[in-house]
């Protein structure tokens, strides 16, 4: 079983994110992590390998710092890693990210692609399905259980309100949702190995793409500016002992806010 895992390096979920005074950039506290959902994808890849043999390769598109996410992948137990190094493609829209990743995947042999359900920076949840479409492969999204046997997969997909059990022939793309597994914590031996390993880098030109594809004037969608979230007015505390406060709260919801 050859398994590819798409991992993205993202700002730590706790990192401060502020809009720059120009309104056109973000100032993000430089704390990074592997995308939360990609950890579930990696863990699942390792479990499939443990059961069926084969290799796990982690692939990331990003700037030079994204190598850290790949080191984490190696530390967890991935056999190989590869960085597609290009800030413009990585910082672009989902379409360009998926285009570059799919070009890289075309050069690989694999049975399974595992990715995260969503990257927690841009919160798009587009790239794996787009990669699948570029490659002409099926995908199953938001997977909470995955069983592999006889060249096919049975995946449980957690759509809203219902769980769907889906069968699909391999190769196929799966996106990992929380609940799929508990990601392991890297062992010290893994961390040592990850520090020493040489991680190959490729440029988008090596994949048959040109840089101008990801230039803002050629992008299919682009960010014009950033806006702050709407601020809620200061909380209004409802006084009184429990029964009184409860009755007043109900009155407000019914008579003032008219929401129930």
């Amino acid at each position: 079983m050859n398994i590819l895992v798409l991992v993205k390096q993202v700002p730590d979920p706790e990192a401060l994110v502020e809009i720059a005074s120009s309104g056109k950039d973000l100032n993000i506290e430089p704390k990074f992590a592997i995308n939360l959902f990609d950890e579930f994808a990696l863990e699942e890849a390792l479990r499939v390998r443990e059961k069926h043999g084969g290799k796990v390769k982690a692939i990331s598109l990003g700037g030079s710092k994204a190598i850290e996410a790949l080191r984490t992948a190696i530390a967890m137990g991935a056999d190989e890693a590869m960085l597609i190094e290009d800030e413009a493609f990585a910082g672009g829209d989902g379409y360009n990210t998926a285009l570059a990743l799919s070009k890289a995947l075309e050069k690989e042999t694999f049975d399974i692609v595992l990715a995260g359900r969503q990257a927690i920076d841009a919160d798009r949840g587009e790239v794996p399905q787009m990669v699948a479409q570029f490659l002409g492969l099926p995908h199953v999204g938001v997977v909470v259980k995955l069983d592999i046997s006889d060249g096919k997969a049975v995946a449980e997909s957690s759509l809203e309100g219902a769980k769907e059990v889906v069968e699909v022939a391999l190769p196929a793309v799966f996106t990992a949702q929380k609940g799929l597994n508990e990601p392991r914590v890297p062992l010290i031996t893994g961390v040592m190995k990850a520090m020493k390993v040489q991680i190959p880098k490729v440029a988008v030109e090596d994949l048959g793409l040109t840089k101008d594809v990801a230039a803002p004037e050629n992008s299919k969608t682009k960010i014009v500016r950033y806006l702050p979230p709407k601020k809620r007015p200061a909380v209004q505390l409802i006084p009184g002992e429990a029964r009184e406060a409860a009755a007043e709260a109900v009155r407000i919801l019914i008579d003032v806010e008219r929401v129930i």
Partner: protein
Amino acid sequence: MDKVLVFVETRGDEPRKASLELLCEAEKLAASGKFTVEAVCFGAMSDTLKGKLLASARKLVRFTDPELAAYSPEGYARALAGYAAETGARLVLAGATGTGRDFLPRVAVMLGTGMVSDVTGANWFDEPMTFVRPMFGGKVFAEIAAPASPVVVTARPNSFAMDMPEGVSGEYEERAAGALADAIHTRVVRVEETKGDAVDLTEADLIVAGGRGLKAAENFKLIEDLAAAIGGTVGATRSVVDAKWRDQADQIGKSGKTVSPKLYIGAGISGAIHHIMGMDTSKVVLVVNRDPNAIIFNYANYGIVGDLFEVLPAMTEEIGKRRERG
């Protein structure tokens, strides 16, 4: 005139709310005279459902291919993208539900165009069109311009008003996409309904959520009772899901679902940023916590500092009384 296609999701005899909201928005586009709008629907359609949809769209197109009876990302994407290409659509819209977010990215690639996911606002008349969408779990919003055509968009449920004018009565057309069987490589083996009839969290208007302050799984009865009293859906924090008190499907937050109800009531929840990220676009927020310094009060319109074991039952009872009085 520019063509707008709205993908309409249905469940039994009901159109999903996220789809109806988009049809309301699309009706405004149609009324402007700049756009023509078609609602596109797959799978079975009862007369009841048809009636509801024809009162919400000037034209309803249903694809009758048997391969579309069950959801498959490839089949749905092929049919929708094919029709968008054939009609030269300028805009392809769907609700940012699980299904919408799952297959619209494939539609975008098939059409060789860009997409904007999970938008909470739109300027349809700008050239190029611009959209607003949350990023970083709602810490910031981005305004996105989409110069490519068509534009593929998914819209977050509860972002557009449900205000269909009276008197819309659409025409109905049936079509076949054809040649889908070879395109579909996934097969649904079975569907397990986990939620019964309750409205799913992401589309719910009214949510009552509980956290670790509930102390034990069985105490969620207090949350369920209040939810039942107002006709709402139950939500939970991650700690509660990790403790197996509630199903993963109930989790609100960064690693769970994003909700945008008219009313969010939270009890026994501290207000960790990961939870807030999933609920901060709620319109009215009421929280109950016994700790006056709990962070969640910073994200609420109304707060009760008190013991949820007293406040929740009292609220449920009070709602019952108010209902009796009428």
